[in-house]
Each structure stands twice: as structure tokens, then as C-alpha cells.
């Protein structure tokens, strides 16, 4: 019998009495259920959700903790991953990313489409599943989904009627290469691109490219999906209370027969990370959501043998942006010197307890396009020991006119681990190069304004590629990008960027991207310290939950999740 079962019903009242009695004799340390290191519980690295099921148990309510509230339900304004906790379960996409912890275009799969064909380098034809029905709720009332719905969604995403919301276009880049869309019949969609686009299909499977119902958009006063959400997905949004939570129930007419296995999914807004982790440990929720970390994983592994927390390299890289318009960072030798003098492994060990990955500009989660970690570990600036790199860095700094170092300022975003990283970096630069770094820690709103205005010498922050395709991350520092706040301009890089974007052969694209990585290590417009791991927790008795490189991008597979008897509320 588990502990909860022994403490049911009016346990809060019982607890109040117990707490009163216990207050007089609080033990020095609470009884620990920790297992010794190396036990089966702590040593488990394989994903129990991937184990082959003997017998699928249907039903139950799976509860997800969410670190914030949805702003609205509309893909035209949102790229924050938490929205997918609801939207990805209610809506479907034309395609979907496959079950993989890295970007893997070979695992792209159809969602609403039945098949696709590339007619020529710029034309794709999709055949849609027949008989797919919208949820049987107003305003769509279970009508059939047709090619016009997909066309409407993609065109709306690109140029649609949402100009009264200033945040329009957050996902616009994912459909930017589309020139025109035709629907020869109810179930056929033909997409013509302006030019060959290596990322097009990947973007069609993007978790934010979700098909919306025209009727629902038109029913909204300002054309933004706000008052509710309908879709063709495995769950129907039954009710929601802003700032509190969302209740999704099984869609009996889902186009994949037999799915979903769960009766319902409850998504609860629990903003505090520690509270979510505690609720997970107490089995109040089954998924602690985003912003779990190595420390929380350690506690789960040590003290909760019935829970699992997986970790895989994520899409988030920590780094330092240089303002290349100002001395001393307008000199590539200075930036290169800083890059060589940093001890990345030291930072990972000090602030991430070793739970992060050495990485160049692209995180390992971009699959074949990333440099493998063992190769990265041999590169100057990334390798151990540091002696040779530090000597080179000192020489470069002297050649640039700073033989005795210099003083500078690092503006640090107050977010997760970045301030701690910055402290270690400042100490390393002082010790290795005699560079005095003044840390200025700023909250997100202030940091965003300062960096956007280019008002910084160095800026420490996270970078994140929301779509997963390498083109997005690489595009952040092309000359014309608004995200290129350091104003680094390099014609060769821009040229290579255009080449890789048009390279339809993945191997050829990887080769070009490799050249871009070398160029970035030479020029160092941004210094990448590491890639953060992504964590996903769930009870070990649940099956089908996907570990993922960016939070929630594979949550659409929740339709295949089921849990053993006794794990969920039924």
C-alpha cells in the first residue's frame, strides 16, 4: 500500500494535530527514504515510458503542472512552450515531428496528412486524411476537416487578419517561404514555395503550426483565439479558468482509432518551480512541467523510486553576446581571446553540477547538424587542459593592444542559472586575462530593453531556437536579423546561411553548417558556454511519454500515454 493510501480523507486535519504534537519534538533530520547511490532507483537511466507494454490500461486523468498561464489560444501570437500543454492536445498539425530527442527530419510524420510528395524543388503536394472531424462543439459542431482549413491556417499564419494584435507574426517565419497554396480538391493541398527551403517540411511539423477553424477565428471580436479552442486533436477543451487551469477530455471522434487512452488531462497553473516539483513528489500532479533541473532530478532519483525524471540535451544554450560596434569587442582578437580563456567545463561543473553539454552555436539537439560533444571537447576554447588556450588568449589580447587586460561590464539576465554562470566567467577572465568584469544583473524586462537598444558591452543570456531547425538559430546572427543585437556583420556568414537554407540534401546542409561553425569559432560574435538539459518527469507506471529536446514539442503524443492501475485518479 502506498503512503497516500494510508493518509486519505481528512488527512489535512490529522496532519494539523500531528504537526502540533511534532512541533515539540522535531527530529534533527527527517527520516530519509533515500537509496544508496548506484541502486536500481538512482542508477536508472533508461526511460521507463519506452518499455513495451503488456496490457494497455485505458482511462484516468493525467495532471500536468504548468509554470504560467496561457496568454491566449492562438498560434499567430504564441511561441511560448507552455501553450502547447493545451493547444497541442486540442489541435492537430498537417505534419508532426517524430519521436526523437533530437531534430531528425527523417522521422517527420503525417498528422492530418496521409502522404506528401515533393513535385519539384519548390512544390509540395499533401493528401489529407479523409473523414477527420472537428470536435463536436460549437462553432464547428463536428464538421469534416478539408484542405481549405489547412490553406486558411497557413495563409492566416503568414499574412492573416490579426493586425490589431501587435504581437502578430511570432510564427510567421515558419511559413515565410510559401508563395501560394492551392486546393485542387477537398483532400489535396498544393504548396508552392518562393525558393527551395530545406526547413519547409520541418516547419510543417512544427508543434506551433496547428490548424485552426475559420468559424472560431471569425467568432472572436478581434480575430485572436481567446475565448476557447476547438480542433481535431485527441482532447476537447471542456473548461478553463484563467490563472487556475484547463480541463481537457477525451475526443471520442479522434481520427486515430482507439486513441487517446486517457479519459482526461488536467493542466494546472503552478507558477513556482519548487511548488511544482513538490506537488510531483507528492503525486498531486503527474508531470512537474518546465524548469526542472539537475538538483530536482537528484532528489527524485534518490528518494522517489516510483517517479522518473529524464534528461536530454535541450534547445537552450547559455552564452555571452558581444557588442561588436564598441571597443574592445569590435576587435575579433579580443572576442577570440575571451572565448579561449573561458573554462566551459569548469562552469558546467560549478553551476550545473555537471548536467549540461559542451556545445558550439548549435546545440546537440539539432542532430546531424551539430558537432558531436566528443569532437567539441577537442576544439580550442572547449578543450582541457586550458594552459595552451589561455597562453594563446593572452597573446591575442596583447596583439589587440590590451597586454594588461581591461575593464568591462557584463549585463546579466536574472534568469535561472545565468547569474551564477556570469560570476564564474568573471572570475575566470580576471584570473586568466586580467580582465575585470563588472556584473550588472537585470530582470528580464530591463535586460530585453537594454540589449535590444544595443546598450551593452557584453550580455549574458539564454538563446533558444524555438523551432528546432538549425536555420532558425543560425539566422539569429545574420546581418539583417533583429535578434543580432551585437551588430556583428559578416558577408561570408550571410552567404553560407543562404546556402544552407537552400540545401535540400541534409548531408550537404550539414557540411555548410560545419563551415559556419568554424567561422563562428573564429569570429566569436557570441560565446556559447553550454547547452542546458531538458527535463521531463512522470510516474514510472506511465507509458508513452516522450523525452524531448524542447519542452512540450512532443506533447502531442499524449494521446498514446497510458498509466498502470493505481497511478492515476480514475
Amino acid at each position, binding site marked *: 500500500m502506498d503512503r497516500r493510501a494510508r493518509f486519505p480523507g481528512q488527512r489535512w486535519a490529522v496532519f494539523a494535530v500531528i504537526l502540533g504534537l511534532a512541533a515539540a519534538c522535531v527530529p534533527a533530520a527527517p527520516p530519509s527514504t533515500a537509496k544508496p547511490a548506484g541502486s536500481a532507483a538512482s542508477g536508472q537511466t533508461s526511460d521507463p515510458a519506452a518499455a513495451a507494454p503488456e496490457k494497455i490500461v485505458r482511462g484516468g486523468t493525467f495532471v500536468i503542472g504548468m509554470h504560467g498561464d496561457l496568454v491566449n489560444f492562438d498560434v499567430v501570437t504564441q511561441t511560448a512552450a507552455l501553450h502547447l500543454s493545451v493547444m497541442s492536445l486540442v489541435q492537430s498539425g498537417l505534419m508532426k515531428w517524430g519521436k526523437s530527442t533530437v531534430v531528425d527530419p527523417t522521422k517527420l510524420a503525417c498528422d492530418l496528412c496521409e502522404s506528401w510528395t515533393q513535385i519539384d524543388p519548390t512544390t509540395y503536394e499533401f493528401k489529407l486524411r479523409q473523414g477527420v472531424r472537428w470536435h463536436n462543439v460549437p462553432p464547428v459542431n463536428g464538421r469534416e476537416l478539408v484542405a481549405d482549413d489547412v490553406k486558411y491556417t497557413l495563409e492566416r499564419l503568414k499574412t492573416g487578419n490579426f493586425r490589431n494584435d501587435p504581437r502578430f507574426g*511570432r510564427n510567421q517565419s515558419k511559413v515565410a517561404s510559401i508563395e501560394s497554396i492551392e486546393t485542387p480538391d477537398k483532400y489535396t493541398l498544393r504548396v508552392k514555395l518562393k525558393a527551395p527551403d530545406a526547413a519547409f517540411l520541418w516547419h510543417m511539423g512544427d508543434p506551433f503550426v496547428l490548424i485552426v477553424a475559420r468559424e472560431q477565428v471569425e467568432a472572436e471580436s478581434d480575430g485572436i483565439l481567446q475565448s476557447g479552442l476547438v480542433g481535431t486533436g485527441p482532447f476537447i477543451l471542456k473548461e478553463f479558468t484563467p490563472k487556475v487551469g484547463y480541463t481537457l477530455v477525451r475526443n471520442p471522434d479522434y481520427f486515430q482509432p482507439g486513441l487517446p487512452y486517457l479519459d482526461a488531462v488536467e493542466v494546472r497553473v503552478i507558477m513556482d518551480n519548487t511548488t511544482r516539483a513538490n506537488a510531483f513528489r507528492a503525486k498531486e500532479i503527474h508531470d512537474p512541467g518546465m524548469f526542472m533541473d539537475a538538483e530536482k532530478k537528484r532528489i527524485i532519483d534518490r528518494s522517489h523510486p516510483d517517479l522518473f525524471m529524464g534528461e536530454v540535451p535541450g534547445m537552450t544554450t547559455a552564452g555571452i553576446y558581444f557588442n561588436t560596434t564598441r571597443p574592445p569587442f569590435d576587435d575579433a582578437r579580443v572576442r577570440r581571446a575571451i572565448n579561449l580563456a573561458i573554462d566551459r567545463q569548469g562552469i558546467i561543473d560549478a553551476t550545473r553540477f555537471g548536467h549540461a553539454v559542451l556545445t558550439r552555436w548549435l546545440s546537440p539537439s539539432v542532430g546531424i547538424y551539430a558537432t558531436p560533444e566528443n569532437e567539441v571537447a577537442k576544439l580550442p576554447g572547449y578543450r582541457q587542459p586550458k594552459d595552451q588556450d589561455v597562453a594563446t588568449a593572452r597573446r591575442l589580447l596583447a596583439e589587440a593592444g590590451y597586454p594588461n587586460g581591461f575593464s568591462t561590464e557584463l549585463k546579466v539576465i536574472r534568469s535561472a542559472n545565468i547569474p551564477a554562470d556570469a560570476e564564474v566567467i568573471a572570475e575566470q577572465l580576471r584570473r586568466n586575462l586580467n580582465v575585470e568584469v563588472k556584473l550588472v544583473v537585470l530582470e528580464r524586462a530591463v535586460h530585453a530593453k537594454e540589449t535590444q537598444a544595443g546598450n551593452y558591452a557584453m550580455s549574458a543570456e539564454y538563446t533558444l531556437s524555438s523551432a528546432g531547425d538549425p536555420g532558425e538559430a543560425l539566422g539569429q546572427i545574420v546581418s539583417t536579423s533583429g535578434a543580432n543585437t551585437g551588430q556583428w556583420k559578416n558577408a561570408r556568414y550571410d552567404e553560407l546561411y543562404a546556402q544552407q537554407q537552400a540545401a535540400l540534401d541534409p548531408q550537404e546542409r550539414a557540411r555548410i553548417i560545419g563551415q559556419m561553425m568554424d567561422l563562428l569559432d573564429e569570429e566569436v560574435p557570441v560565446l556559447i558556454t553550454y547547452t542546458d538539459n531538458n527535463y521531463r518527469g512522470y510516474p514510472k507506471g506511465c507509458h508513452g511519454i516522450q523525452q524531448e529536446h524542447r519542452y512540450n514539442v512532443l506533447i502531442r503524443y499524449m494521446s498514446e500515454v497510458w498509466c498502470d492501475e493505481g497511478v492515476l485518479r480514475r
Partner: protein
Amino acid sequence: MQAYVLRRVLLMVPLLFGVSVVVFAMVRVLPGDVATLMVAGGQDSGASGVNEETIQAIRRSLYLDQPLHVQYGIWLWQVARGDLGTSYWTKRPILDEIGRALPITIELAVLAVLISVLVGVPLGVVSAVRQDTGLDYAGRLFSIGALSLPDFWIGTMLVLFPLLWFGWIPSIKYTPLLVDPGANLQQMLFPAFALGVHNSGPIMRITRSSMLEVLRQDYVRTAWAKGLGEARIVWGHTLKNAAIPVLSLIGVRLGRLLGGTVVMEQIFVIPGLGLLVLGAITERDYPLLQGVIVLFAAIFLLVNLIVDVLYAWLDPRIRYT
């Protein structure tokens, strides 16, 4: 009395106007910019096509490109018509947002004050009546402990110890009081207890000192001399006269609690005003922030008025003209 109350209510208007000016100015001098934040997105948003054109479009649509006095005029005109505007982010009416959060905060604050009074007042009375005895020392020790321990620490322990001992935490699923009072109280009692215990410390101390002062009055000595019972003297004659400073303190504490208890709301996942304000600050949601703070001020003024009126009820010698 009616004229006094009316005068106080009318006085609130210029006071609230002053508060609105100060709040508007303070919110606008906060560093950071909502338009940039919207374009940059949250930590889990990924990179976006940040460009100055979009940022300026956002500023225009939110009237942030207008001079401050024009922005204030637009906002004040809305408020005068009973409309606090809409949230920059969610586009939901601010009155709806506040309307959803306020009853939750009121419930939590009232529960917390009830607990603090139920604990603090009897302890203060017993401590005064049994001055310099073991009971008095125990009561004073409790009050110093309650004062010294921050409410968020007590709240954290209420979550942490049952989690470590029983693998259980207090309910964090919010259910409205009118939907299921039992489920609602299961969640609310724990934060209310933490807040109540903390606030009972000062209430106990002021009750004790006020009681000690009244117990030395001539009329109390006369009551003893007349042979009245202890219970009647203490609870009937002394406490009522000693209650005015206690009531003042309760009013101040209630006002503060109604202003939101951010940390407690975070720990126990209560969607009250505290979390609303916290979100508005971090997201620079100016209209929401302005609306909530002006509401805080109005609540505080109202609670003070109620306390002042209660003085006269407690002590017939007090007359307002």
C-alpha cells in the same frame, strides 16, 4: 455619524486621485519596456524576429508613444467611466481579472485574521490576567516566536514537513468556495494558518499591554470590590475597553493582507491578487498594475473607515461629528 462617514467617503475621492497620479508615475518610471518584452517573448519562447518596427507598432497600439500626461488622461477617462481597461498581454478586461482574484484574497485575508484573533486575543488576555506567571511567560514566548518567524517560512514548513514525513502536501488545486466549500477550505486553511499564526504575535502583545492598562483602572478595581466574577470583569468590562488598539492593529493587518500575499499565494498556488500583481510587475502590464494598486489603496481606506466606525461602537464615549 452619517455625516462623518459621508465626509470620509468624499475625502477618499481626492485621496484616490492622488494615489492614481503617484501610482501612474511610479509604474512608468519602472525600468524596462513592455513592447520589447512582448517581442522578445518569455524564456521559453525562442528567438523571434525582433525589429524596431514591431516594437514601435506595439507602443503605438498601447498609446505608449503618447506623452505621459496624455496616457494618464486616457487611463483616467477610462477609470471615470468604470473601466480599468484591458491587460496588455491577455487582452482580458482588468475588472474581470481583479474580480476573479479579489474574492480569493478577501477569503484568505479574512480567514487569516480570524485565526490570528482567535489565537492572539485569548492568549493576550490570559497573559495579562495571569501576569508574571508561567502562562504569561509561555504566551509571551509564543508571541515573540510568531513575530520572529516570517509567514512564508511557516508556510514553507507546512508544505515541506508533510512532504518529507508522509509524501503528502496540502491541496494546491483551487476550488471556489461556493462550488465546494470543503475542497476550498482544504487549500485555504494552511496558508491562512501560516498567516494567522504570524499575525497573532503582535495581536497577542497589544492585547496584553492594553489589558494590563485597563486592569489597573479604578472601575475595574471597583468591579473586583463589588465581588463580580473574574470572567465577567475580564471579558465583560475590561476586554471591550482594551479592544480599541487591538482593533486598530487588526484593521492595519487586514488591509495589508488584502493587499495580497505574494509568497503565500505562490507556495499554496492560490490565484489571488498577490500573484496578479507579481505577474503584472514582471510583464510590465501597466493598466493591470495601476488598477490593482489603486484598488489596494481603496480597500485600505475602506478598512480604516470601518475600523474608525467600530471605535464608536466599542466605546460609547467616542462620538464623531
